[in-house]
């Protein structure tokens, strides 16, 4: 399988009151074409930092990322991921316009994207506060997919949503991933979601990847004690 992303020895240090704190400490992994990789761990373990490094929102101190093609991201807080003063449609079109697409064509495609994520076309004219969390999250997925990224990163994309909506978004992601053969990096603390969507999972703890494997097996027979703790904590 061809790799869409290869990350080598990533290292990122943050300073908290001048005390260095290694958010990401020597992490290497790859994502294959069409693969859905899960990245699981608790808050503060460095999951989101990895997402920011891949999307070049921050630079790592050490290590390299090789990425074939474009990357897009879906954030945890749906309402905050759209500019409160602009319509959802404006937000979806922004990336396409930046790529030099005409307004009319971009709007047409934005509407197609709304169809794809099963959102009514009238949401094009809505503001973020006029849509629910689930609707905003669908629009965010539409925005991400509109520019045809080779890799989509979902950073806790369902955790802020209601249970029933979570299930809908998870099903949507599964469908899109199966239909489009898109590569997906799913960052989540929810092992059930990882198991539902991913073919491979990385468990992160204190900035390091401590375990890797097929979700079913990792959940069934965790090798590391932390992984076991994580699995047992599921209610």
């Amino acid at each position, binding site marked *: 399988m061809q790799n869409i992303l290869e990350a080598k020895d990533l290292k990122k240090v943050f300073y908290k009151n001048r005390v260095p704190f290694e958010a990401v400490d020597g992490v290497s992994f790859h994502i294959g074409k069409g693969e859905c990789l899960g990245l699981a761990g608790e808050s503060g373990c460095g999951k989101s930092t990895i997402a920011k490094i891949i*999307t070049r*929102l921050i630079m790592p101190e050490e290590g390299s990322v090789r990425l074939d093609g474009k*990357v*897009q*991201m879906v*954030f*945890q*807080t749906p309402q*905050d*991921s*759209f*500019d*409160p*003063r*602009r319509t959802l449609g404006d*937000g979806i079109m*922004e*990336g396409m316009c*930046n*790529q030099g697409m005409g307004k009319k064509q971009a709007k047409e495609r934005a509407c197609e994207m709304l169809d794809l994520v099963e959102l009514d076309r009238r949401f094009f004219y809505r503001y973020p*506060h*006029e849509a629910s969390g689930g609707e905003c999250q669908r629009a*965010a997925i539409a*925005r991400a997919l509109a*520019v045809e990224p080779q890799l989509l990163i979902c950073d806790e994309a369902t955790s802020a949503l209601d249970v029933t909506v979570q299930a809908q978004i998870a099903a949507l992601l599964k469908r899109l991933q199966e239909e489009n053969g898109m590569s997906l990096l799913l960052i989540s603390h929810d092992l059930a979601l990882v198991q539902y969507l991913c073919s491979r999972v990385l468990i992160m703890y204190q900035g390091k990847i401590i375990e890797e494997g097929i979700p079913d097996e990792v959940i069934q027979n965790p090798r590391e004690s932390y992984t076991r703790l994580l699995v047992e904590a599921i209610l």
Partner: protein
Amino acid sequence: MAGRKRKAGRAAGYKLLIFGILTLCVILIAVFAPYLTPYDPYAQDLSNALQPPGPDHLLGTDRYGRDMLSRVIMGSRTTIFSALLLVAIITLAGGAVGIVCGYYGGKLDSFLMRVSDVFLAFPGMVFAIAAASVLNGGVLNAVIALACISWPRYARITRSQVLAVKDAPYIMAARLSGSGTWKIIRKHIIPNIAGQVIVTAVLDIGTMIMEISGLSFLGLGAAPPTAEWGSMMSNGRSMLQTAPWVILSPGCAIFLTVMVFNLTGDTVRDFLDPRYRGKRRRE
């Protein structure tokens, strides 16, 4: 909950309408001042000097026999326009510095913020008096002097607002979608912070009117023949007992105008308050 918010929002809307109209009236008076004055505000008529308010001269005349009402109306032009100019200058200059500092951070931010600290460390009015006298008086120079001491506050407000929004997910999403820095600042950051800065600016118009009048009162603003409220009060201060109208008319004009602008500022703030924009989240 939504019902109360809507009601509060509507009340703020009505208030905004009323004060907006009042503000507009004040500004229109200033704009059309030359056409509204019953007499030439600069025509001296020593035979009519120091007339008390009466049917001919509603607000009386000053010691050169100039009609006070005409001078107050004409003076509104100088005072209000210079205050608006001043607020516009400091909002734009301070805002630009604040956006640069907030968005880029780093050494440039530290440098500019230390510069603003230096300006903030001077006793404001004293600095303005010094600057205005060095610059040789005149309304424009008074505006420049006051701008020098007032911009840092705007830089700070803007900077803190930028810091609050610049790490929001929607800014990250915009960066991811390939928007350049300038586009992000123009399309996402400025619209989202403008509200707070505008409210501060409107609330400051009143203060600035007083400061400009203050400088003029000290003889550092408008030069003598020009009708300006502060210098008019200064001219009248020796006659407070014999001809109180000479000092009271421009004084009341300052009082009323400042009050109108301040109340407008308050209502604008209420109106833009996100709590009244309602309909967000219930629980």
